[in-house]
């Protein structure tokens, strides 16, 4: 072997070069540096979420009421179940990744290949689930009404169960007039028209005695306040400005628009990390198949990418806690 090893004459001299600081290879240490800085970025986002939440602590949406859907189970409410499944998928793909790294240490190419493939599949399932979660959130479930002050009014029956707009409001045909340049203001945005007008909703509430308005304000038990029948009609007639169905960056039928903004931004940024992780994993997967690391007699590249992949899992653990549990 001595013929292939280059001796620099600096062995044993700490500052002579050729020594690995902290006993970690250059690439691995740089990955750790990147992970620390990325962890700080995510903490910045989550702390900003905490800031907004503490600011509106007594009217913040309750995650259990927002994320209740499970694919293929229409109309049933199962808070937490689907997101728990997503968490498990991500932890599972972390496990297959660490198994790939372990197989790499023993230079077992076929095992590394299989475990990398499983990791990629896990990552894809997770990203797909997140896309589904987004689309459900954007579509919304019950519909609500926004007030002048930007607050959200939701509807419940006398038992406190949520009622969807479509169950008590009858839509009158809305004439959707195309905005023409002739009328000026070319740059005026033409948004989509909600299914119902405010008049429809007021009429619906008047004709259904068992429907009440629920505001965002949380009472001392942490539940949203339900108004009396009289207050409900009053509130709706005097303050409602528009019907909100689903959520986007400006309106959110579940409550504060900030909740939707942070949800899109933080889970989106995390989803982007998962996506890029999957892409990097695929590159490494093909390198493994091609035998690049076999020739190198070192699977350290798998280990470095593994560090990134575990970090993505680590971030999700925190996102899960702060968006869905706390």
């Amino acid at each position, binding site marked *: 072997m001595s013929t292939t090893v280059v001796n620099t004459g600096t062995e044993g001299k700490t500052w002579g070069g050729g020594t690995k600081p902290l*006993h970690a290879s250059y690439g691995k240490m740089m990955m750790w540096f990147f992970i620390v800085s990325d962890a700080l970025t995510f903490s910045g986002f989550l702390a900003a979420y905490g800031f907004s939440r503490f600011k509106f602590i007594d009217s913040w949406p309750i995650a259990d009421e927002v994320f209740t859907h499970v694919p293929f189970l229409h109309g049933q409410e199962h808070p937490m179940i689907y997101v728990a499944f997503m968490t498990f998928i991500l932890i599972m793909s972390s496990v297959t990744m660490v198994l790939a790294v*372990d197989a790499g240490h023993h230079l077992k190419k076929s095992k590394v290949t299989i475990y990398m493939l499983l990791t990629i599949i896990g990552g894809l399932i997770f990203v797909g689930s997140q896309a589904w979660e987004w689309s459900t959130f954007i579509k919304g479930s019950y519909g609500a009404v926004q007030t002048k002050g930007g607050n959200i009014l939701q509807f419940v029956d006398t038992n406190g169960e949520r009622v969807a707009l479509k169950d008590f409001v009858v839509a009158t045909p809305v004439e959707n007039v195309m905005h023409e340049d002739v009328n000026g203001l070319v740059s005026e945005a033409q948004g989509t028209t909600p299914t119902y007008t405010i008049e429809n909703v007021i009429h619906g509430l008047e004709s259904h005695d068992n429907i009440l308005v629920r505001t965002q304000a949380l009472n001392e038990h942490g539940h949203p306040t339900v108004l009396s029948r009289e207050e409900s009609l009053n509130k709706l007639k005097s303050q409602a400005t528009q019907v909100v169905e689903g959520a986007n960056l400006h309106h959110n039928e579940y409550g504060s628009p900030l909740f939707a903004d942070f949800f899109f931004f933080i889970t989106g940024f995390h989803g982007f990390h998962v996506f890029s992780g999957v892409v990097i994993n695929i590159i490494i997967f093909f390198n493994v198949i091609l035998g690049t690391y076999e020739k190198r007699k070192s699977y350290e590249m798998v280990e470095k990418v593994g560090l990134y992949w575990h970090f993505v899992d680590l971030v999700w653990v925190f996102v899960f*806690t702060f968006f869905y549990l706390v």
Partner: protein
Amino acid sequence: MAHAHKLEILRGLIKFKSNTQKIWGVLILLSIITTVEVILGIYKPESLSGHFLGMKALNWIFIILTIVKAYYITWDFMHMRDEVPSLKRMVVWTAVFLIIYLVFILLQEGGYIHDVYHNGYIKFDF
């Protein structure tokens, strides 16, 4: 030497025979913690809704369990357990210090603004 792994978790309470076995052991541990979190999240036991240090006791439990999970992901999946102490400190102390600092400042400020809104734009009336 290069691939030596420390094969015990929970301060030596559970010892594993091989690295692969340790990985599955940690998976079981993480799954148990997640299951506990999900069950608490679904049922939200009334007994844990009392406030402690400005937050619900239940929320403190969630945060502590999350940090426990983060510890095992970093230590066993990312092999931090096998790194030299100076690398561990470099990563963990930096992140933990800066995160605690940032979170404290932002949450304090958020709470302050809430009080300003809540008390009709007066926080301190001298």
